[in-house]
């Protein structure tokens, strides 16, 4: 009997599980993701597989689990790949075009800097809700929250019926000024529930209670689009946990803000899950920073379908306040993670126009997967290329009992090569180089584009396909160190999820000018904290593990940009607020110089925020003292032919078993380290050492 924390991370291709017991021992497993109706199957398979490594069987591991934390891309994929549920939008009459107008900035939103001037070339995205499924209803509330035109319930009812007849699966409701006075939205919601009880409802004042009808509409519509699938997935998984496995400890979902939340809450606001997939990896890197004292990290995750990365600068992950999904912008703090379609499953293809070799963004995903998986895929992928090049052990087992088939990989890559007049190996190397360049360019834009020098950063590489490519893309950026976390590398995201606290954000718009009404502020914080306490209690967070951070966002009147100032807990007094103001002024001057502040300018509090947190129990990774530099004999595997291209073509290189390498071992390139589910390709003149956590450090 021991206490175990469990985390499961579902990606497009694989579902990963990590179990960590109180001694820091780790068991991991990777199984193929399952989609659609049976999405939860992959979840339970991965737990079973990891538990087996700890010696559990028949589900008895659930008795020892103290919590299950879960990250899923189901919400993200629903909107990105399938477009989400058919969604209708009810909005204030006269403002039906809000979502298609996109404030005029839809073309430029989310575009990299090199595209911003390309007005003739870059286009707006498809409407987030088709105009014909958008209905304006007579009602109007003003900025004071006063009703100007009462809600026309009959018209509303007819509109709901019209949408239901059109076959919508979800309805988003966004009315003007609803975050000051939600009565009309609440009433519309009730009417939807009466008229169309099976339809998923998403209401703006609940999802994104902030000023700005465009961003609020986007948040509400996206929440609606991902709602039905996400809620049903979460609901059925939670039911299975309770009914089939008798598991009643906290079941948490990873949110895009870097914190966990109880699954039942996540089902109501699945928007908070969008973009959460890669957040776990960043959380894991946060732990790495504590272990290594390394302030600047580029966290990179290359999985089956996509390449994602985030920056940790001075120990803190970068946060974006207005994330963008498919060029639509909404308000919600989210860890800033960029993504492109570049993964092991990325498909290589011939561009007829330029007769050039292209790779991605289309992916073969898990099904059918790369050609070598022998699941019906015939198109050449990055994984097929890696296999041909000798980077992947031909005898490796992917997931459970699947060995790649070299012949199928060669057929797929070969037929593409024929069209290009290249050999199979040359084509494979081309695929490898192109996908690396794509990832390097994305990172370069983001890192340098933010004013950082990539050479000040260390790359951390995880995800099934990452370490095979990390040395190449890091080298292109002039970065000299790559860390591949040892045993947990392929399941790094899941590890990070297991290490994340519960985190929420509750906000009220106040727009309160100086002098501040301390009593009013106190009662607003009290309200928010009471709300927060309920959330934490619902997640069984004990009293001594609850934290309630207070934040006020403040600006000088007229500005559109605010600064976050922390507000002390306990009783607010004029003295306390004076101190808050002083800290605002200090931060303002620090950031923008003393000259930038006009002493006569008047301050206002824009919003107040409570950040309830539930601190979870974390188990440290186990450490081993450093030993010999020479790898033990048991770590040596037969050498293998690896295609390096150029004059040398194919050469024979040393191969090591990553699981048998010991802390302190050092080895030089060219060589390959085989690991379960992944591998490290060490190029000429590069060196690798194993540290006390069994992590691999590449020096480029």
């Amino acid at each position, binding site marked *: 009997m021991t206490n175990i924390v469990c985390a499961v991370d579902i990606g497009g291709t694989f579902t990963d599980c990590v179990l960590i017991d109180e001694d820091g021992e780790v068991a991991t497993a990777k199984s193929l993701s399952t989609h659609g109706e049976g999405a939860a199957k992959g979840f339970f398979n991965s737990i079973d597989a990891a538990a087996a490594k700890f010696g559990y069987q028949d589900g008895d591991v659930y008795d020892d689990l103290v919590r299950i934390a879960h990250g899923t891309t189901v919400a993200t994929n629903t909107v990105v790949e399938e477009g989400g549920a058919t969604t209708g939008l009810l909005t*204030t*009459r*006269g*403002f*039906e*075009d*809000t979502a*298609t*107008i996109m*404030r*005029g*900035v839809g*073309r*430029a939103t989310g575009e990299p*800097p*090199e595209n*911003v*001037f*390309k*007005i*003739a*070339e870059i286009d*707006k995205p498809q409407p987030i809700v088709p*105009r014909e499924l958008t209905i*304006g209803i*007579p*009602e*109007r509330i*003003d*900025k004071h929250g006063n009703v*100007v*035109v*009462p809600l026309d319930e009959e018209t509303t009812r007819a509109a709901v019926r019209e949408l239901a007849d059109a076959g919508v699966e979800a309805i988003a409701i966004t009315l*003007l*000024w609803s975050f000051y006075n939600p009565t009309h939205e609440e009433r519309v919601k009730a009417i939807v529930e009466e008229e169309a009880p099976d339809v998923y409802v998403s209401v703006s004042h609940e999802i994104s209670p902030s*000023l*700005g*009808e*465009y*961003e609020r509409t986007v948040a509400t519509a996206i929440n609606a689009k991902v709602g039905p699938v996400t809620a049903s997935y979460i609901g059925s998984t939670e039911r299975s946990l309770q009914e089939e496995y008798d598991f009643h400890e906290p079941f948490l979902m990873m949110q895009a803000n870097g914190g966990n939340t109880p699954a039942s809450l996540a089902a109501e606001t699945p928007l908070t899950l969008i973009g959460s997939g890669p957040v776990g990896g960043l959380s894991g890197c946060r732990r790495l920073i504590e272990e290594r004292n390394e302030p600047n990290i580029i966290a990179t995750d290359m999985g089956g379908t996509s390449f994602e990365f985030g920056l940790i600068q001075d120990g803190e992950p970068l946060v974006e306040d207005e994330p963008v999904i498919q060029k639509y912008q909404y308000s919600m703090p989210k860890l800033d993670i960029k993504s492109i379609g570049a993964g092991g499953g990325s498909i290589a293809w011939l561009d007829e126009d330029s007769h050039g070799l292209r790779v991605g963004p289309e992916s073969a995903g898990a099904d059918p997967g790369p050609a070598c998986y022998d699941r019906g895929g015939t198109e050449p992928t990055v994984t097929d290329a890696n296999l041909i090049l000798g980077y992947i052990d031909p005898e490796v087992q992917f997931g459970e009992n699947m060995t790649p088939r070299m012949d199928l990989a060669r057929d797929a890559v070969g037929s593409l090569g024929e069209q290009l007049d290249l050999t199979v190996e040359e084509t494979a190397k081309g695929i490898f180089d192109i996908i690396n360049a794509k990832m390097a360019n994305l990172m*370069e834009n983001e890192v*340098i*584009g933010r*004013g950082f*020098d*990539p050479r000040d950063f260390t790359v951390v590489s995880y995800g099934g396909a990452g370490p095979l490519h990390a040395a190449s893309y890091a080298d292109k950026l*002039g970065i000299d160190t790559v860390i591949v976390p040892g045993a947990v590398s392929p399941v790094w995201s899941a590890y990070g999820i297991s290490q994340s606290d519960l985190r929420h954000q509750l906000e009220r718009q106040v*727009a309160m000018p100086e002098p501040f009404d301390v009593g009013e502020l106190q009662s607003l914080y009290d309200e928010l904290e009471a709300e927060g306490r309920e959330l934490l209690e619902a997640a069984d967070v004990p009293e001594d593990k609850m934290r309630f951070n207070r934040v006020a966002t403040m600006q*000088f009147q*007229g*500005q*559109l*940009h605010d600064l976050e100032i922390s507000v002390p807990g306990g009783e607010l007094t004029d003295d306390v607020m004076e101190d808050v103001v002083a800290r605002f002024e200090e931060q303002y001057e620090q950031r*923008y*110089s003393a*000259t*930038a*502040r*006009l002493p006569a*300018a008047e301050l206002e509090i824009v919003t107040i925020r409570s950040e309830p947190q539930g601190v979870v129990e974390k188990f440290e990774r186990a450490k081993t003292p450093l030993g010999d530099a020479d790898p033990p004999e048991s770590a040596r595997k037969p050498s293998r032919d690896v295609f390096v291209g150029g004059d040398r073509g194919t050469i024979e290189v040393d191969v090591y078993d990553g699981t048998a390498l010991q802390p302190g071992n050092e080895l030089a390139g060219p060589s390959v380290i085989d690991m379960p589910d992944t591998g490290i390709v060490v190029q000429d003149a590069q060196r690798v050492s194993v540290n006390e956590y069994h992590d691999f450090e590449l020096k480029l």
Partner: protein
Amino acid sequence: MSTEEFDPSRWDGRDLPYIPGEFSDPDGVALHDDYDADIDPVTYEVVRHSLWNINREAGETIQNLAVSPIALITRDFQTGILTESAEFVFFGQYLQYFSGTMDIFTKWIMENRAEDPGIEPGDMFLHNDPTVGTPHQPDVALVAPVFHEEKVFAWVSNLIHQNDVGGTVPGSFCPNAVDTYWDPPSIPPIKIVEGGEISTEKEDLYRRQSRTPQNLSMDLRAGIAANERAKGRIEELIEKYGATTVKGVMRRLNDSGQESIKETLSKIPDGTWRERAYQERSMTGDDGVYPLELTLTKEGDELTFSNEGTSEQAGAINQPFAAWRGTILSAANVLLQPEQMGATGGLVRQLNFRPEPRTITAPDHTAAVSPSGIYSNQVSLSMANSVISKMMLSSQDEEIRNGAMTPTSAQWQCHIGDGFTDDGEYFLAPMTNCMMGSTGATPKRDGRFANGHMWIPEARGPNTEEYEQSWPILYLYVKEHGDTGGAGERRGGNGGKICYTMHGGEMELGVYTTDAIPKTPGLFGGYPGSRGETVVLQDSDVKDRFAAGELPTDITEIDGENVETVGKGPAIELDDDGITEWWWAGCSGYGDPAHRDPELVATDVRQGGVTVETAESVYGVVLTDDGDVDGEATESRREALFEQRLDEATTVDDIVAGDEAVEAGGGD
């Protein structure tokens, strides 16, 4: 191209606008011009991106600190980094036509301020003098030298459109201005920051003219902070990579930009392209018509722009030379070299400007220019857009042809009101919903409604809630306005329309837009973009309609006393039940509408972009009751259209006096 040498000596920024001549070492200021020609590719890329990012960071500083609503929401500001001799290095993705001004006024400062009062580290100059080089007085410029080893290494600069800098009309766009003495005061470059300290007396002088002086002080600090930020970052770059390396990157960036534009121009035949548009009503009470012309001559790898044929300066529709130059640079930058991300220096080297003095687009310093942002800048943008696109459409290179776009709207429709809220607070309300914009058509694609503007690549419109939060008004609708994009084989993007009513408080509309003459030219048979309109109903029944639970979605559904508006008309005070609808215009079309794919027309009609009537009368497309294309009826309708056109046509000699049949160029 005109072969006679252009003599800039009279163009000194005092009487005539400033046009720099051959610019070498000005007296009284030492320039740092050493550079490294051999830089490794990684360092080049890192420094290049860093410079771009420094400029972006300066822009973000302004967005974070400024309070001028126009500047903030529409991105009506700009940041730039220039070399020691005031060549552009990077120019931001904000309002593009400021590009015509920054290098010019920086050179003016070197020529006119170096000896007295001197240019020292820690100095910053402020100016808003259109004759020295701003688009109009509300666009206030700040520029600071970046020193390295006692020499000027670079310049950092920004312009921010200010809420109000004085003049006869609140908001400082003065349609009633007879001359510059009615306009807001023009301040030639003054040292507003000396040795890092703001000069209080100069700030007081500057503030004194404004209806919203606090805003000016806030934005002044935003601009100073932005320049300081950029300056500090450039100093860090120098520290890290060395001065000659950083300068070498600047050089190479401009040289490669120049090579790139030369390469593009080599794929376009030499020739001349021309546009003409008519401004109307030069100021309040006037009813004249004023032709403007723009001629682009391409000879080899150089482009020369002339305004020959443009009317003499008149009323308040004038455009400072620097703004005219800026509007042309904007179109060239966005259309010819969008991939350069605003690295404008190389392009500028290939362009020549040949203005005729004391005309609407190159007036002397006595001319009123304050409303240029609404009228004259936009017409010039549209005309520059036209001549450059026509030139691109003469290329045989597919990529260049497909990059051409039909002209952007030739007026900037807006409302600017001022008044008091219910709490008795004074407010100024510049309503720039028009920034949701519209874009032109390309040979391969239709223009798009609410797609921003080509001249502010990242402009955005407001949320209704933001404006209602700030001012005592209540919106009834904000929506697409069908049939306002110029018809064509590829049609221009539609404009929009907006309606609001008073909601507490009181407000007078000092500026509103209405015009009659189509000013946004269609290309190669495309129809022009639409016009602006302001409909005002006083003493309307809208509040009764609200009380009755109704929410009208078109102003024609509302009863009230109609106040007919004309362009640059007198101020209108909206009464408590006053309601107004105004339009922002669409862009023009490309090619013959009767050649448009009928299926596209059917889609347009389904989505409300085009009405059924226009589909039939202009596009010659007949739809079935289900909204599908009626193939046969469409074919015969189009045949009839083509026939009718030739039946109704006459010859040019019949409509124009014989020897005047053709404007300029002639048959020689």
